[in-house]
């Protein structure tokens, strides 16, 4: 990817392996709760319609963020649960794992949330999520035809993303 070559501060992606389809779903939300992108590679069970599914996912993460920050044993300030958080305060959670899947989460200070659901034995995906954020910047933000806050409709972005997720161990 030559556009990353000039800057030494962008993360280098983990080397892709040939292990195939480990990613189940990917969501990208912005700070207003709008689902900018939903990609699905391997999801046998659908329980809700798309709208409800997105709202549920966003609500879940919003609450989890709030909860984890309030329960932080190392932080001095104890606000009430449910008080909106200023960005930068509190700790941030990055993943949770169940017996059937692992959900990895990354939020940028500008409110872009990237959620990747994979199989439970996946390792720490924080670098991968950062790389996906870089892809978002290169293919979506820098696209002059894209309006921020609207769903992403970019074939190139989708293809590159699919390729990258397929390569995550």
């Amino acid at each position, binding site marked *: 990817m030559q556009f990353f070559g000039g800057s030494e501060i962008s993360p280098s992606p983990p080397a892709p392996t040939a292990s195939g389809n480990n990613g189940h779903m990917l969501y990208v939300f912005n700070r207003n709760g709008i689902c900018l992108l939903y990609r699905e590679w391997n999801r046998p069970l659908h329980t809700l319609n798309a709208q409800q599914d997105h709202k549920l996912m966003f609500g879940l993460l*919003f609450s989890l963020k709030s909860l984890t920050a309030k329960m932080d044993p190392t932080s001095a300030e104890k606000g009430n649960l449910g008080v909106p958080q200023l960005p930068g305060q509190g700790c941030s959670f990055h993943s949770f794992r169940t017996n059937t899947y692992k959900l990895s989460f990354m939020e940028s200070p500008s409110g872009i949330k990237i959620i990747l659901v994979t199989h439970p034995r996946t390792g720490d995906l924080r670098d991968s999520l950062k790389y996906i954020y870089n892809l978002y910047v290169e293919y979506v933000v820098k696209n002059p035809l894209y309006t921020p806050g609207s769903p992403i409709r970019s074939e190139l972005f989708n293809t590159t993303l699919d390729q990258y997720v397929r390569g995550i161990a």
Partner: protein
Amino acid sequence: MAPVAPRSGDAIFANIEHVNCSWTVQNAELFTLTYGAIVRQLLTDLEEVDEVNKQLDQMGYNIGIRLIDEFLAKSNVSSCVDFRETAEVIAKVGLKMFIGVTASVTNWNAEGTCCSIVLEDNPLVDFVELPDTYQGLHYCNILSGVIRGALDMVSMKAEVTWLRDALRGDDVFELQVKLLKQVPEEYPYKDDE
């Protein structure tokens, strides 16, 4: 045609910004000349200096709301704890990354909500002279818009104004950044939906 011009200006500018942060010196001149052409065109289209200032600020805002993601992705800074850190990051990392200037932060007020960012040099104004008829023009107003837009996307409402402008006879460029308020993240959906 005035509404159309800023949109394509944004598009060009976004591309130039990208070019400028990857390859430094040779394309700085292209950047400067393109910006000068945009300002010249705005002056011809809008004629009123105040209108041009407003339009430049709006263009800068549109750039800033997109630029923030690129900045966060490339620079890998974590969330700033307070406004002091934010101002330092803008001056030392942000401005350096996008226009290649290292600015300094001075003049903090007592509460820590207002500061000045001083730019010693400014690639936007290379080769530029401001004629007497346009003395009210803030030539670099796009920068104030960019900072305002970027801060808006990280939940900080700010007001950015020019205190000193080298094109008007001062020795440096000085921007005043005033934090109006921090907007905490609200749950966007109504409960009954």
